């Protein structure tokens, strides 16, 4: 354990030397870092073109767009495009659903993906480890539409696997899954974990593989068991990755996977009380209207909520450990 502690304290010392260097004359400093600035040029330009330029389009959210006049010359209408998001009894339900689902996804995905990644790293037979790794990724590769059909194969009232094979084993009567909203929070969480854990697991696995084996060797000499190695070495050392992944997901907490909430419940009206989220609400609202002002208003609303939450959580993180913060 001594090793971990000493590397952790080594960092501030490095930073001090940098602070001193930063006091050098500006020109010299520019020259020193010119190669690094050259490296970032392609990425900065790409993001500028691909993301920042189109952001001018955010004004669409405040306009009554008329293409005959052109987007810029269309009338400003203030927040009228946003009204439909709040002017419904369901606004509360949709907000609640979106947030609760995303919070449970963030937590469960994290625990399960890190758990599987740690266990994968413990598998001694390489062939087996590789095999497990590839299989866990399969669900991520299947599109949500197909997943919707596979879920139907499981849950269908008459021919479904669960109703026909599983429930009779326990002497339970068949359940009509698609008309009972109360089961869907569980179903959707399971489907989401099943589909995405493999993908997230790879990121954590890469982080674990990057850990210097010396730590474990030292720990083994100290007589630390597997459990202690995991909790005292592995998890602290991948904590920065965990933090960043969580922060990134918080930024998108008001968005949701449209396929999961629309295709998987097969757009069943009876289930809306537990399956309607912001994205599906907007989709349904605009099916017939196709109004681009209203759709960009929804996007802007989602972004702003995520932005505020992420600034807040980033602030909290940076209070505790500046290095782990997003920016």
């Amino acid at each position, binding site marked *: 354990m001594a090793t971990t502690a000493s590397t952790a304290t080594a960092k501030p010392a490095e930073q001090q030397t940098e602070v001193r260097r930063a006091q050098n004359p500006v020109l010299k400093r520019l020259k020193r870092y010119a190669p690094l600035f050259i490296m970032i040029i392609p990425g900065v330009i*790409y993001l500028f073109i691909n993301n920042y330029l189109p952001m001018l389009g955010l004004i669409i959210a405040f306009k009554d767009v008329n293409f005959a006049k052109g987007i810029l010359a269309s009338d400003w209408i203030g927040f009228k495009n946003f009204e439909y998001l709040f002017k419904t009894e369901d606004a509360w339900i949709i907000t609640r659903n979106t947030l609760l689902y995303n919070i449970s996804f963030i937590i469960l995905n994290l625990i399960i993906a890190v758990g599987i990644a740690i266990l994968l790293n413990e598998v001694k037979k390489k062939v087996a480890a590789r095999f497990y790794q590839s299989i866990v990724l399969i669900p991520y590769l299947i599109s949500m539409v197909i997943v919707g059909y596979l879920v139907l194969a499981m849950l269908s009232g008459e021919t479904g696997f669960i109703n026909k094979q599983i429930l009779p084993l326990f002497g339970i009567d068949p359940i009509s899954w698609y008309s009972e909203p109360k089961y869907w929070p569980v179903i959707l969480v399971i489907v989401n974990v099943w589909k995405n854990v493999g993908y997230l697991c790879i990121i954590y696995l890469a982080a674990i593989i990057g850990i210097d084996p010396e730590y474990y060797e030292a720990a083994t000499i100290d007589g630390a068991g597997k459990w202690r190695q995991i909790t005292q070495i592995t998890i602290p050392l991948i904590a920065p990755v965990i933090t960043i992944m969580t922060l990134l997901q918080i930024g998108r907490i008001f968005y949701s996977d449209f396929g999961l909430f629309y295709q998987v419940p097969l757009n069943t009206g009876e289930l809306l009380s537990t399956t309607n989220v912001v994205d599906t609400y907007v989709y349904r609202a605009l099916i017939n209207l196709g109004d681009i002002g209203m759709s960009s208003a929804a996007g802007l609303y989602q972004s702003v909520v995520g932005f505020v939450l992420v600034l807040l959580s980033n602030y909290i993180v940076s209070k505790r450990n500046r290095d782990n913060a997003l920016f």
Partner: protein
Amino acid sequence: MVNTKDKIFQAAIHVFFIAVVLMCLMPFVLLLTTSFTSEASIVKEGYSLVPSEWSLDAYKFLWSDAENITRSYGITIFVTLIGTFVGLSISALLSYPMSRSDMPMKKQLAFYVFFTMLFNGGLVPTYIIYTQVFDMKNSLLALIIPGLLTNGFFVLIMRTFFQNSIPHAIIESASIDGAGEFKIFFKMILPLSLPILATIGLMQTIGYWNDWFNGLIYITDSKLFSLQNLLNRILLNAQFIQNNASTLNAGEVANAQIPLETVRMAMAVIGVVPLLCAYPFFQKYFVKGLVIGAVKG
């Protein structure tokens, strides 16, 4: 003593993973068998691992379009290779300087990158920029550049990896030895970062391989359809015809008799299998990252 404990631990892990594998694999097997089932038995009995009647109809239907599907495979492979390579390079080049604790303005840069993950101007402005400023409609570039080339998520994840798995000391010592930044990056940082490069590379590959959206909005020339785009279009057209068969003329009704349920699954199969075959290539790099100790020593 330690040995038996270890053996039990290993056995327990394997039992756990066999359960996980079953959960991930069973639905895929169901998908596979469904694609070989006759349409009639699906309508009658639903999906089944042991259908009452097997059939190759779905694949025969896709085979009738073999010429287009082969071409679209070619396009997808080309786009995936180029896109993954270029995108990975851009992401690595952007994220490495951000990871350096001595880099000026790194927080602002991180914010610049992160902001793109939250706000977007929507489809219409993006489309106008790519088609009218860069004239990319109906070009291969439209399948590579918009949206997919790199994104804030990849960049920030890579930055975190560089930050945490590459000791600053080795950069210092190399630079004292007179190595330039580019040399350090290409000769030291990249070889040390193979696991994360492989991870992000895999994600880029999956992104390009499964993308149908760029094709949907930027491509009208059927010669440039990528695989997922083509499959998506075939499926939606077949669906439309089936749902609107009553508007057709009698002679055209034959077109509406497509085994849709099984074709959908067969399409998923021919889309996923090549990716699974590519996976071991990335896995190869998952173990090679363990050389930090060697470099340090």
